[in-house]
């Protein structure tokens, strides 16, 4: 059974200048144990999609359209209290900045044990055993001693390991990892990615990996969804999307990754900037920047067509191989 499916999700923010849709008509699905990468520029709606899934959209933002279904059960209509029981227990979350994600006045153990006890009614001693075990699994040396220390006594990379342990300690089936490596040193990034991949394999947890780093996607994800201006423009297996992108935006993204070898004079870049949510053009949002723009592009919005395995929203690829 599909673990999570998001169907035609629109998140709206009412404001003084009218309602703005942070994401529009987003559909995606994820199978158990799968790692789905989500890439896109800042403001493309990657994190907003993650926040919608765990039910933590900042008011006045709200889900205006669509559904979120977790293990066959619709969750976007649940009460805040029901949603709280799902968060941590069935859907975990890993945050971007390990330096600010941990409470500075509580020990690492306190935070882990409380999370475990909130969801898995265990006695404290047993919860503590589990907490130590999780610290060991995420690669904290001497976990029996480190469990009683405070976050400031850990380095950035170690703290991100603690954050991962916190996200997984109540054994959710799905984890939303929002830019888990962005705030880390490059050398530590690779370790954290390897750890995530290992834990996903060991526990069978599915991961939605939100990032703007194509390298991380290439290394980690099974499938990738590319977002642009609040919509998914392309979905497919990582190898396919990276090697043979179908959408001109994905193509541009790929072309602008520096490669090892003879250096080009100028690194290719996509001209222009992503339109802001309240100034999106009526047709394809990428049309103003698209090198292959056609007349239809600025009039009619292309729908995402294809299967979950490979889909693209572009008039050029109307006859994309399914």
């Amino acid at each position, binding site marked *: 059974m599909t673990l999570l499916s998001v169907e035609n999700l629109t998140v709206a923010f009412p404001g003084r200048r009218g309602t703005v849709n942070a994401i529009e008509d987003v559909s995606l699905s994820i199978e158990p144990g799968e790692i789905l990468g989500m890439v896109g520029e800042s403001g493309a709606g990657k994190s907003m999609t993650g926040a919608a899934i*765990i039910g*933590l959209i900042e008011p006045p933002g709200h889900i205006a359209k669509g559904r979120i279904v977790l293990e066959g059960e619709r969750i976007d209509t649940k009460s805040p209290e029901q949603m*709280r*029981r*799902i*968060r*941590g*227990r069935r859907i*975990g*979350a890993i*945050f971007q*900045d390990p330096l*600010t*994600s*941990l*409470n*500075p*006045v*509580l*020990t690492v153990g306190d935070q882990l044990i*409380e*999370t475990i006890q*909130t*969801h898995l009614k265990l006695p404290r001693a047993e919860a503590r055993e589990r907490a130590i075990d999780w610290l060991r699994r995420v690669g904290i040396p001497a976990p029996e001693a480190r469990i009683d*220390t*405070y976050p*400031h*006594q*850990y*380095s950035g*990379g*170690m703290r991100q390991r603690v*954050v991962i342990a*916190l*996200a997984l300690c*109540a054994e959710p089936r799905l984890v939303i990892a929002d830019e888990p490596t962005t705030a880390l040193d490059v050398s530590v990034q690779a370790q954290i990615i390897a750890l995530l991949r290992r834990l996903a394999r060991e526990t069978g947890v599915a991961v939605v990996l939100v990032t703007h780093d194509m390298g991380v996607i290439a290394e980690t994800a099974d499938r990738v969804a590319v977002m642009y201006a609040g919509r998914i423009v392309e979905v497919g297996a990582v190898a396919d999307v990276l090697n043979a992108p179908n959408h001109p935006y994905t193509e541009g993204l790929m072309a602008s990754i520096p490669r090892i070898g003879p250096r080009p004079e100028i690194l290719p870049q996509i001209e222009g900037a992503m339109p802001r949510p309240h100034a999106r053009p009526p047709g394809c949002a990428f049309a103003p920047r698209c090198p292959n723009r056609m007349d239809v592009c600025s009039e009619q919005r292309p729908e995402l067509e294809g299967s979950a395995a490979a889909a693209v929203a572009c008039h050029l690829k109307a006859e994309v191989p399914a």
Partner: protein
Amino acid sequence: MLGFLIRRIIQSIFVMLAVALIAFMMFRFMGDPVNSMVSENATTEERDEVRERLGLDQPIWVQYGRYVARAAQGDFGLSWRNARPVSTLLAERFPATAELVLVAAGLSLLIGIPLGIFTALRPHSFLAQSLQFLSLIGISLPTFVTGILLILVFSVWLGWLPSFGRGEVVDIGWWSTGFLTLSGLKALILPSVMLCLFQLTLIMRLVRSEMMEVLRTDYIKFARARGLTNRSIHFRHALKNTLIPVITIFGLQLGGLIAFAIITETVFQWPGMGALFIQAVSFGDVPVMASYLVLVSLIFVIINTSVDLLYAVLDPRLRVDGARASH
């Protein structure tokens, strides 16, 4: 931690020495003390004799040294007005001020913190908005005005509470307490309400803004994302972080309470140190003024040191003796 404590104590000694110097200088501002001790037609020999007997012929630094040495033993000399030891006068008056300040400080915390939390958690509710508005009045109204209004309403119009004095007090050793009699407790209400009102509104507004700040942090968002209960997020995760800056301000304000007590004690004729000080000022009773200054400074220093120690209890990042960050 021990090193920190020793450092703080040494710093405090220097602060107290400086305060003692200022207090000592007050004696010189009042002119030659010998003039006020001998009769108008005393001879120069008689004057010199008095001067010598009191040690006033010594160099000023020797006199200062003696003053400090005697003050350290609790001997602040005699009051010029009623010729009793200043230390005795202060000891008589200290319990009244201490009880007043204690009750006012307690009230401001016990009411201010819950109200602050409430207005932070329900910022848009009608009650929170009203409290915010009322607190503005509390912060801007001068305390003597609120004191006089309180007397007008509760003593003059309603006749519920006494408008002056401490009521009956019970002596426990040298400490006289108003906590043990009904009239003592009733007499405490109006002055402590007047004294705490400013602190209370300050603490409420401070807790509110700190709490709202903390609730926006990543670690609170992450706690929500882990499905922790609202109760735990608000009162365990957020409150502890909120209270750290609140304690700093409260520590500073506690000293302020003692200073403001002068006004409250004057309005309510409360027989405390503040009232003693005001009397001393009007009679030019320098030993009492100087000793009050030294005593209040000592209390400030003790409070500030305690607050610094409290930090370490609340904020693990300041516990310097703990394990260092490892990588």
